[in-house]
């Protein structure tokens, strides 16, 4: 089965990194995965997408995702019109964006773990923790993925991802 997820974020929030972390974790879990940035110039603060595919078979298609099964929204102010089954949103309160929505205050978790760059919370660690929970990816594989992708700088991200995995709620 092919799972297609679209990430909506702002340039600089770490959406592309998140797609890559989850894809790597899925690979460690024995699955196939694909992480694609939005193609084109990425500008800080502008709305950008990243695409994530996970499957138990090798993934051949590489066109953009048009009808995602799931959405991950890094900024609740981004307007969405979706009929997705699964949603993950950075919001302290439940906001329904899909049939089943996972929500958490990813910004606060990032700030508490000092994952801030030039005044911006970098959300890749907490959002990947929440997405791992929602996508049934084991936290140990996500930890391995974070370590693989970030190397020595992984410590704070590991903490933030684990915290997000624990505190994320759904509605």
């Amino acid at each position, binding site marked *: *089965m092919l*799972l297609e997820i679209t990430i909506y974020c702002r340039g600089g929030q770490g959406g592309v990194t998140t*797609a*890559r972390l989850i*894809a*790597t974790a899925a*690979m*460690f*879990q*024995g*699955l*196939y*995965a*694909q*992480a*694609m*940035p939005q*193609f*084109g*110039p990425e500008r800080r603060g502008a709305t950008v997408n990243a695409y994530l595919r*996970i*499957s*138990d078979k*090798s*993934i*051949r*298609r*590489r*066109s*953009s995702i*048009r009808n995602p*099964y799931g959405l991950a929204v890094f900024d609740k102010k981004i307007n969405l019109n979706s009929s997705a*089954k*699964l949603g993950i949103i950075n919001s302290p309160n439940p906001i329904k964006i899909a049939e*089943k929505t996972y929500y958490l205050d990813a910004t606060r978790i990032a700030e508490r773990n000092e994952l801030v760059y030039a005044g911006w919370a970098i959300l890749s660690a907490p959002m990947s923790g929440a997405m791992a929970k929602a996508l*049934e990816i084991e936290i140990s594989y996500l930890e391995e993925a974070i370590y693989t992708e970030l190397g020595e700088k992984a410590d704070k991200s590991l903490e933030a991802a684990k915290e997000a995995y624990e505190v994320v709620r759904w509605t």
Partner: protein
Amino acid sequence: MWNLQGNVQAESHRNGSRVRKLLTSNEAVAEAVKIAKPDVISAYPITPQSPIVESLAKMIAKGELDASFVRVESEHSAMAVIHGAATAGARVFTATSSHGLAYMFEMCWWIAGSRLPAVMAVATRSIGAPWNIHGDHTDIVQLRDAGWIIGMAENAQEAFDMTLQAFCVSEEVNIPFAVGLDAFTMSHTAEVVEIWEPEIPPRRQAYKVLPSDNFAVNAVTMGKARMKARYDLAVDLENSAKVIEKTDKDFGNHGGLVENYRLDDADFAVVMMGGWCGDAKDAIDMLRQEGFKIGLLRIRFLRPFPKKAVKELGCEVLVVDKANSDLRGVLGIEVSSCGVEAKNVVAGIGGVDVGVEDLCRIFKDFMNGKLEMEWYL
């Protein structure tokens, strides 16, 4: 909600000496180049190729790769550096895209005509004007007449395998080898790749010239000398097909000059090349379920062109192109030159997204006889 059972060597990303990694095609090419241990790399940055040579520069800086990285002011000079280093017997690599390939075009002829082995990755991108950084095959098809071997990968695994194969083939036949990979949908898309480290034989080449040698190459030719050199290159380029096919099994078993996908009993064949062949395969599987007997002939090598495989198709043929010459697609012209009467669609120019649903629609129109020559806009 869904049932995703990990079935790939679950809990382990190691398969013998193979390590599974999540890599973009750009990163996969860089990993392959590192394994091939080039002596000299020279390149000028251009989107979407830049991450290839950035990765290689990083490997050199960290001491993982012992090579000279020559920074230059243009692609023309990058290819000139490669040309000079190859003449002296160095294993060489460069990468470019689009306007960069256009700018180095003259030197591409020099290195091919000099019969020097070299490997270049081309992250295939449209050429302006109007300005566009996205993917199509407009740039790499320009290389057709220069005398290069031109491969087109479908995914990061193939980009990795083909880059390694490129060094072996190029150094055996004394012809430069370009590895094509689609802009962004491959160059910047991370996917699972099995990395392995084959032994690449030491550099060999027909001749070399060292600074201490009293020897001149490429002087003005008289009479038939130039024509003879050109003929020899054309013959050797044709014959490189055998070397490509022979070495294919050592580099991933991807099928040689072509990949046949569900063609055995097909009444309809689609001919395509590059990364979107993955989408085409998904479309073909869906149409097969609906009862259509359709398959894909994936062109893995634009040069030497797989004329035999095209001639043997023996069914109705549609070519879907990502580069045009006049109204016709370039691959369409190539297929027609083999005596095959083919329908032709030009699509995806300048990165226009062509998905599985689009390809299903195009393939159905073709099978229903509603298609001749058109642009999918």
